[in-house]
């Protein structure tokens, strides 16, 4: 509670509302394709000052100590505005992983810095596509007196463009380890792989990177638990971001259908287009309803199997709905929708990158099937 009697959650919702009202800086988003930096330090500071980066960070580390419900509100707002900064990668995926790590001065330092915006840790957990959980792990951490020597390659690292270091997964003696590797550590190099929406994945090459023992964040079952939980939570918050993207894109389509005149009438009066717009609206509302339920379910702290099933349900529905809505937005806008100048293309591309990251719709459907085919009934 602050002096106005509002709790953090209410304040947060208000500040996200203001942010969304302010609108998106779409010229900046468009310029990403021409090489403009995907990370803006001033914007990031603002997100930190608003408290958004520390939504999930415990209060003892200077965060707000709130839940996924609040993180989802922030992510949906950022999705609407097409903000390119790596909110979910840092403030959810990295924050949740660090939160799950064993208490240590490094953990507290990274979490506090993450919330304040002064540190930018991201997770480097994935090596192969379609490997949610990072089970196909080839990176090794060879123990030696005083630390580890880490070698391997990591892909699909969102947020790497601005990261000051990585939480890297590696195997030591067949056991999962999570280790902190500063960006400028000797033997660690980062290459950018450009994405459709102007952002990038980082590709990490780790060659005999020397990591001191104090940089070991979690090990064995504890590391596995922290990583799995963080991935489910980040996939769910990405679903929220996709909700923001799809809602704004569909609004743009509906606005256009009301104003664009052909055959002497607004095209939105044609039943073929109306029914198509309605079916997409239904997908949007399904996505919204699922997301809200899943977020509440995850905040209640379910067992890992239920959590995984719920997260996959949210990501698959929200990813598919966002893709359908943004692709239809191009069609509804006609030839203009196919131009670089038209904003709907920016939304379609963001939907594509957010859908692909952390498992696309198909991957999460397959995961849902593996986890719980007979239990699907119970969820309905």
């Amino acid at each position, binding site marked *: 509670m602050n002096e106005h009697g509002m709790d953090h959650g209410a304040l947060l919702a208000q500040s996200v509302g203001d942010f969304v009202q302010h609108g998106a800086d779409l010229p900046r988003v468009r310029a990403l394709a021409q090489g403009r930096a995907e990370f803006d330090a001033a914007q990031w500071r603002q997100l930190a000052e608003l408290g958004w980066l520390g939504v999930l960070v415990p209060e003892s580390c200077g965060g707000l100590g709130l839940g996924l419900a609040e993180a989802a509100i922030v992510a949906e707002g950022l999705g609407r505005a097409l903000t390119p900064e790596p909110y979910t990668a840092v403030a959810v995926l990295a924050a949740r992983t660090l939160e799950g790590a064993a208490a240590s001065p490094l953990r507290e330092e990274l979490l506090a810095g993450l919330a304040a915006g002064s540190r930018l840790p991201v997770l480097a957990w994935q090596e192969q596509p379609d490997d949610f959980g990072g089970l196909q792990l080839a990176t090794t951490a060879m123990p030696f007196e005083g630390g580890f020597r880490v070698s391997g390659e990591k892909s699909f690292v969102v947020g790497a463009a601005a990261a000051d270091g990585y939480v890297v997964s590696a195997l030591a003696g067949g056991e999962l380890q999570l280790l902190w590797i500063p960006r400028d550590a000797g033997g660690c190099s980062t290459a950018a792989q450009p994405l459709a929406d102007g952002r990038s994945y980082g590709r990490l090459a780790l060659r005999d990177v020397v990591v001191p023992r104090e940089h070991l964040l979690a090990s064995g079952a504890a590391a596995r638990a922290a990583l799995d939980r963080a991935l489910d939570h980040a996939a769910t918050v990405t679903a929220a971001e996709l909700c923001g993207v799809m809602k704004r894109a569909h609004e743009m389509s*509906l606005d256009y*259908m*009301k104003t664009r005149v052909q055959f002497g*009438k*607004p095209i*939105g*009066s044609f*039943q073929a287009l*109306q*029914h198509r*717009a*309605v*079916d997409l*609206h*239904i997908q949007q*509302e*399904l996505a919204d*309803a*699922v997301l*809200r*339920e899943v977020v509440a379910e995850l905040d209640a702290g379910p067992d890992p199997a239920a959590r995984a099933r719920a997260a996959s*349900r949210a990501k*698959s*529905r929200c990813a598919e709905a966002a893709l359908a809505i943004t692709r239809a937005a191009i069609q509804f806008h006609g030839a203009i929708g196919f131009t670089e100048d038209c904003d709907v293309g920016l939304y379609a591309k963001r939907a594509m990158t957010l859908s692909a990251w952390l498992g696309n719709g*198909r991957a999460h*459907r*397959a995961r*849902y*099937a593996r986890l719980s*085919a*007979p239990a*699907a*009934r119970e*969820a*309905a």
Partner: protein
Amino acid sequence: MSDWNALSDEDFRKEVRAFFENEFPEEYKFLPRRMRWHECRDWYLKLSKKGWIAPNWPREHGGMGLTPAKLLIYYEETERAGVGRMPDQGLTMVGPTLIRFGNDAQRAYFLPKIIAGEAIWCQGYSEPNAGSDLASLRTEAVPDGDDYVINGSKIWTSMAHDATHIYVLARTDKAAKKKQEGISFFLVDMKTPGITLRTIRNIAGHEEFCQVFFDNVRTPKHNLVGELHKGWTIAKGLLGFERLNIGSPRRPLQAMEKLETLAQARGLMADPAFVERLTQLQLDLADLGSLYRRYVDKVRRGEALGPDVSMLKVWSMDTYQRLSELLIEAAGEYGAVEGEVAIGGENVDVLSPFYNSRPGTIYGGSNEIQRNILAKYVLNLPS
């Protein structure tokens, strides 16, 4: 009477499951059609005696007053046990309408009769020339002394041949400017002289609905519900309930159970192409549950349902039909066989979900009409 809402979800589910599994008559479980009154009367009375006949009504009127979560569990367990669909218009439609729009005398007279199984209701809405365009209905009610005199005809009236009462939309003001104005909502006893029935066989061969003829049928003036000429508002309020009811996941759930049983029995879970399609439908159904609970929560908070509830009906019935179609496909050659077939040690009626899911996209306003409504009133698209 117990406070069911005080039980944990698990305890409530256990209790409901045990009762449905043990008490619902074996011979009617998973009946591939609606139950006739003579078949379900004992069950209806048993539920009534137990206080379980109206899970969706408030307790003050004899219902269970269940929270949305509990109500869903109740419906899920109904499906799981294969409890058949009874003539339920009184429970799902008339009760909630009288609670919201009726007067004290109507509630005091009719609600206990519904609970006791003494009044079985059917719905007099559609007419031969008023289907999707319901507001163009021509059945007429004219005041005469203490009565209204009704003339005209209603059609597609489900279970009218089992009903003791019918609720009727009739035109009371032919001069009204808009066709939606000048319609009133009446309660009519089916024993009233002048009512005749013609039964109609549906596509599956069952006598499920009727045409009802009104020839100078007199109903007392106190059987007018709400204000004169304002019946359309009530009908729309009812359609909200109806769309919520049609939008419930419980009917598609039953088809999903069959599909999962059949898939296991035929070894289809080893076919990745089939599993992908099955999973998509499982998610469509699970996500329907999320959307449904959103609306049930609204109803329980006492909020009126807006036109957006139409999307629930569209999605639910669309999902139900796609499920019934995958069931037929999963059955291979058996997908052409009428009635129950033994497949891999399981008895499955492959075609009944296909038949049962057909009318859902037609009645209560076709899915195409629902999309028109959503386009106009929710998306505010021009006409």
